[in-house]
């Protein structure tokens, strides 16, 4: 293994950062140091987030809102404080535009369902079209398939180029006057591709379609500014950005949240209930039925503080350096084919590849034996595998604590895989 200390520009002080993440000290398979390269699936959690969770449960735990006792007031302040933090993190014009969900999938389903039940001009019905892309995560495909099935709307999508980018050459034919909503990922979770938001948003606005951005792979890794995006909705998920599981976010433009109907019904989301009818609280509460993921929101708030204290620009620069190095080193591995952009430009820190005709399952297994955790399979983006005629990929994905040494370990590990099945 060749360490390259200081050779890559923009690297963070990973030695210090890794101390914040207890799991990174873990040894697996009898003494192998854990090399965690499965960050696109979920990130690890810093001590600071775990401390926030413990502090919440050990001192302040209570149900939020409608309580006059101390714990209820503290829990409410912590929960709503987390909303403030998330709002600031994504530069939301108003804190009331931040809805807490259980994950990005719920956020996306929430939008799809709102549009299905909405009145005009938002309503998706049989005369309208929904546009997605071929590189979406299943969580940004299936909700729209269900919506299309249930309303009769037509589902359309952008295809992919051989280089793993969106094929926007026919954009005016894909997004038309009948298009009610365009939903796409900012960063592909399987190929790492960063998509050209501006071009898509411009066309969507031309035809008056709503824009939904799946920022699940963006929020953890770069500056996310919902105002700059000019989208109408932005979804992301806590567990990929140093936060707990069980918490997601939907940001939506205030006028839309006011106009659109609720999705889940129940406690907290109402204004007044009688047996025959109910009225609903203003957003964000209208979309938060039942006891929310209180501790998880607090944990996400702590994660946002943690990321901000390091700085999202610096994290992006670090990951870019690691990705550049990884792309370079992976290209040295015989028979390795990168699925997706073959350089570090306009791409995130997830790199998918195939290795000759060794099945990814086997690649992953042999890497695991050396302590290297990668993900194998279709990464909830099966249409991408179909598109490139492969059953699955092996994916290595990096984060703020990833090091060049870990890239080296991966490359060495792949050498071992080749020998094993050679």
């Amino acid at each position, binding site marked *: 293994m060749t360490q390259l200390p200081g050779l890559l520009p923009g690297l963070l002080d990973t030695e210090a950062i890794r101390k914040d993440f207890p799991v990174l000290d873990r040894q697996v398979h009898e003494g192998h140091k854990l090399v965690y390269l499965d960050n696109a699936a979920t990130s690890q959690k810093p001590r600071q987030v775990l401390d926030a969770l413990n502090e919440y449960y050990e001192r302040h735990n209570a149900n939020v809102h409608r309580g006059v006792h101390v714990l209820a*007031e503290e829990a409410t302040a912590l929960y709503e404080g987390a909303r403030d933090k998330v709002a600031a993190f994504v530069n939301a014009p108003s804190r009331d535009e931040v809805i807490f969900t259980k994950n990005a999938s719920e956020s996306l389903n929430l939008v799809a369902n709102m549009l299905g039940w909405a009145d005009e001009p938002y309503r998706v019905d049989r005369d309208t079209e929904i546009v997605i892309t071929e590189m979406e995560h299943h969580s940004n495909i299936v909700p729209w398939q269900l919506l299309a099935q249930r309303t009769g709307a037509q589902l359309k999508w952008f295809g992919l180029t051989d280089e793993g980018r969106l094929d926007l050459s026919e954009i005016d034919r894909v997004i038309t006057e009948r298009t009610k909503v365009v939903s796409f990922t900012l960063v592909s979770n399987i190929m790492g591709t960063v998509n050209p938001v501006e071009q898509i948003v411009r066309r969507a606005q031309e035809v008056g379609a709503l824009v939904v951005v799946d920022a699940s792979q963006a929020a953890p890794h770069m500056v996310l500014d919902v105002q700059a995006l000019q989208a109408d909705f932005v979804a992301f998920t806590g567990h990929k950005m140093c936060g707990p599981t069980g918490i997601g976010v939907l940001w939506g433009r205030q006028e839309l949240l006011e106009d659109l109907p609720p999705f889940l019904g129940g406690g907290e989301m109402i204004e007044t209930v009688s047996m025959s009818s109910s009225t609903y609280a203003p957003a964000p509460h209208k979309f938060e039925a039942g006891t929310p993921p209180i501790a998880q929101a607090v944990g996400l708030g702590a994660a946002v503080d943690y990321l901000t204290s390091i700085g999202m620009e610096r994290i992006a620069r670090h990951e870019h350096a690691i990705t550049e190095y990884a792309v370079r080193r992976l290209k040295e591995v015989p028979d390795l084919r990168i699925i997706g952009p073959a350089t570090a430009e306009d791409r995130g820190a997830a790199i998918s590849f195939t290795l000759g005709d060794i099945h990814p399952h086997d690649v992953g297994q042999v890497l695991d034996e050396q302590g290297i955790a990668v993900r194998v399979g279709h990464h909830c983006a099966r249409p991408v595998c179909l598109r490139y005629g492969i059953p699955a990929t092996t994916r290595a994905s990096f984060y703020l604590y990833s090091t060049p040494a870990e890239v080296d370990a991966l490359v060495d590990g792949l050498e071992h895989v080749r020998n094993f099945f050679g």
Partner: protein
Amino acid sequence: MKLDSMYQDIILDHYKNPHGKGLRDGDAEVHHVNPTCGDEITLRVRLDGGKVADVSYEGQGCSISQASASVLNELLVGRELDDAVRIQEAFLELMQSKGQAEPDEDVLEDAVAFAGVSKYPARVKCALLSWMAWKDATAKALSEKETA
């Protein structure tokens, strides 16, 4: 005792002997609800030229929301509308101050007693219920006058 900072004697007095309670004729009526606790108020405003001629109300709620409606009645009835709006704004600011503001007694009179309530986030809405209703009703009355 900290409680006394919320339940000032002035507040308890207004609660026990509310001013101007009951519904009388008005130019506009609104019904406001505090979903957090179910407090409700129906409030009517009567304007006369540039003046707040009457504010009448009926509702159910805790001592804070009841007393606040009573103080509102005492403070605003008979005022020039501009002054009334200024008082409403000062009260809103006080209630959002989390116990940090130094209220201006010249403007707020008895309403300064609510300074302590602003430390209790769950109760701020109780104190504001009637004031938000008044603002809403007044806007309604004005726009109805305009279109009339």
